[in-house]
């Protein structure tokens, strides 16, 4: 086992037996940083914020990084994080992150976890929509923002707790009652230099008042060499009758690690409609905890995981039906190439009060190589008696007959495979209602396939 003084080289990947939490140099170093920054992080002078950070640090100190001995982390190993000495992100200058969208919607850009007003364009925001940086809001000791911190996120878990301890910035979006906020684009871009791994812990607070509507497009990208660990937490609160369409696109460099926790609360008659496309970092853990807290709330947690090379992508969701007459729908497709690993864990928990729950879950994987693997674990826990829950799972390979059929029509093998992969993804991607966004996602999947074909 590594001695506690050993300083691992950057980018080194070594899977060791999980050391006890306290033995991880990284844990000690992250806690050191939390202590060192305690007086300097935005909002430090506010007692509620300081207490929130201190609780986070304490939880992380007790638990350290989750290990595979824990049920929720059985298939995903964070050895890479435990073995890395992360630096503080420095303020990147002269950065113009490439934009995947030409849209005129308001855009907020984060570089290495910090909101950059100089790169953002939020002038055109609709009346009734407040959008800004968490750091600014905490600096100003904004009561609403402070009250929202940790309200929904499960901060008894170590990574969200660490996020609380070290959150420096993030995005705060608030929509007043009945406002249609149109579309907002968030881009989180990592610029870390090779050999200098950095970690950042953005905290996003999104709150839609009753009847408000918003389409939120969230992208995570980064420079090719960036070894950045992004440990993000989003707290999403949808008031009665509100509707959020949340499109997430995680397309990060092979050197990056992304752990995300999205905590969502959907109140009466509200709808959270999400689609997450993950093309990887080296390791991605995409965790969503959603609570349907009011009657007739609706939830769509759809997505696609496209995993190639030696990447590892884990989608873990917990859907809690806490009120009657709610519907949750989940269609997740995973395509795996090379030596990639995919994980899909999903738990649907139906409380006693949640009569007439309508739950649907479909999880399908396509393995393009014999070395690729998927671990899937669906779980149903039902305490109500009048419930309709169905789930299905399939794992398959490319259909040889289909491939031959396409080739016999003159379509080259690579193109034919691409069509079949698109076809496999179609009944997930087609759930995205906006045609422009759907096309963008389709283009992303085509680009992914090109990366696979050219051995990226």
């Amino acid at each position, binding site marked *: 086992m590594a001695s506690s003084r050993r300083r691992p080289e950057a980018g080194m990947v070594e899977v060791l037996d999980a050391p006890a939490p306290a033995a991880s140099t990284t844990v000690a170093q992250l806690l050191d940083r939390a202590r060192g920054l305690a007086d300097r992080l935005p909002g430090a002078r506010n007692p509620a914020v300081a207490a929130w950070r201190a609780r986070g640090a304490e939880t992380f100190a007790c638990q350290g990084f989750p290990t595979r001995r824990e049920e929720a982390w059985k298939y995903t190993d964070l050895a890479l994080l435990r073995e890395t000495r992360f630096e503080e992100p420095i303020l990147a200058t002269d950065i113009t992150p490439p934009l995947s969208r030409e849209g005129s919607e308001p855009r907020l850009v984060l570089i290495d976890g910090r909101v950059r007003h100089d790169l953002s364009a939020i002038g055109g925001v609709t009346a009734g929509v407040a959008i800004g940086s968490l750091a600014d809001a905490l600096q100003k000791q904004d009561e609403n923002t402070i009250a929202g911190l940790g309200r929904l996120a499960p901060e008894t878990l170590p990574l969200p707790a660490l996020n609380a301890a070290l959150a420096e910035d993030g995005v705060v979006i608030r929509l007043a009652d009945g406002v249609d906020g149109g579309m907002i684009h968030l881009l989180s871009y990592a610029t870390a230099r090779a050999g200098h791994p950095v970690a950042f812990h953005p905290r996003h607070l999104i709150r839609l008042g009753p009847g408000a509507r918003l389409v939120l497009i969230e992208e995570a990208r980064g420079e090719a060499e960036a070894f950045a660990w992004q440990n993000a937490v989003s707290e999403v609160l949808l008031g009665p009758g509100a509707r959020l369409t949340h499109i997430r696109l995680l397309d990060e460099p092979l050197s990056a690690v992304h752990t995300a926790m999205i905590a969502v609360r959907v109140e009466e008659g509200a709808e959270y409609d999400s689609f997450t496309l993950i093309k990887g970092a080296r390791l991605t853990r995409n965790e969503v905890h959603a609570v349907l807290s009011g009657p007739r709330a609706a939830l769509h947690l759809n997505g696609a995981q496209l995993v190639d090379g030696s990447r590892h992508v884990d989608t873990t969701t917990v859907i809690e039906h806490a009120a009657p007459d709610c519907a949750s729908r989940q269609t997740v497709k995973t395509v795996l190439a090379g030596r990639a690993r995919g994980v899909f864990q999903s738990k649907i928990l139906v409380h006693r009060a949640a009569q007439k729950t309508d739950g649907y879950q479909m999880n399908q994987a396509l393995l393009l190589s014999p070395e690729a693997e998927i671990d899937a674990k669906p779980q149903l826990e039902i305490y109500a008696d009048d419930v309709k829950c169905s789930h299905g799972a399939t794992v398959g390979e490319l259909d040889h007959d289909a491939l031959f059929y396409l080739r016999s*029509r003159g379509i080259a093998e690579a193109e034919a495979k691409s069509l079949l992969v698109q076809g496999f993804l*179609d009944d997930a991607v087609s759930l995205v209602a906006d045609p422009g966004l759907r096309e963008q996602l389709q283009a992303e999947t085509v680009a992914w396939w090109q990366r696979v074909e050219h051995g990226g």
Partner: protein
Amino acid sequence: MLKIEGLKVSVEGKEVLRGIDLEVPAGEVHAIMGPNGSGKSTLGYVLAGREGYEVTAGSVTFRGRDLLAMEPEERAAAGLFLAFQYPVELPGVGNANFLRQALNAVRRARGEAELDAVQFLKLVRGKVKALGMTEEMLKRAVNVGYSGGEKKRNEILQMAILEPAFCILDETDSGLDIDALKIVAEGVNALRSSDRGMLVITHYQRLLDYIVPDRVHVLLAGRIVQSGGPELARALEAKGYGELQAAA
């Protein structure tokens, strides 16, 4: 145009084609008849380049080239087309998109300009109508949820769009109602020309009433045991394969 010599093919260690000699010159339509399991579809698949077939002897020359050395898509680009006995369903792959990609792949190979979505739609509309299909079928996933007859029409639609130099029709008539049979036969006849060859696999004389063949061959247990003019098909319809089987 297509020349098959001494072709022997095994599937999973079993010899299915046991020495086929067959030549189809440009401008001619040849029919292949034969009982179930005699190797008709196998012949079509081997010509189209499906995997899993081991050629143990013989050769196939197509427009002067060694067909068996080519990939399936190269064969299509060279002008070979197989209308499948059992068209394959492609979930999630839109029919219009599929047809356009196929056409553009073949056009590229022929050195012609690719068609954009608008040009393609113009071309395909007329053909869809001629085959008694609806444009709605273009929007659906390829062959998914199509009836048996719709699948067969979709095969002929592909053929009409790709305009291949050589067409192999594997039981395109089975599963078609009488009106559909006429429509499909008209579609095939529209493609008949002096520089195009065809191999029509069928069980029934009926199709050959519409698509009158130049030659009829009887395939029995992996061998062509008899060849003749259109009258041979009528004789078989009347007498069945019993006599030939007894002689073999």
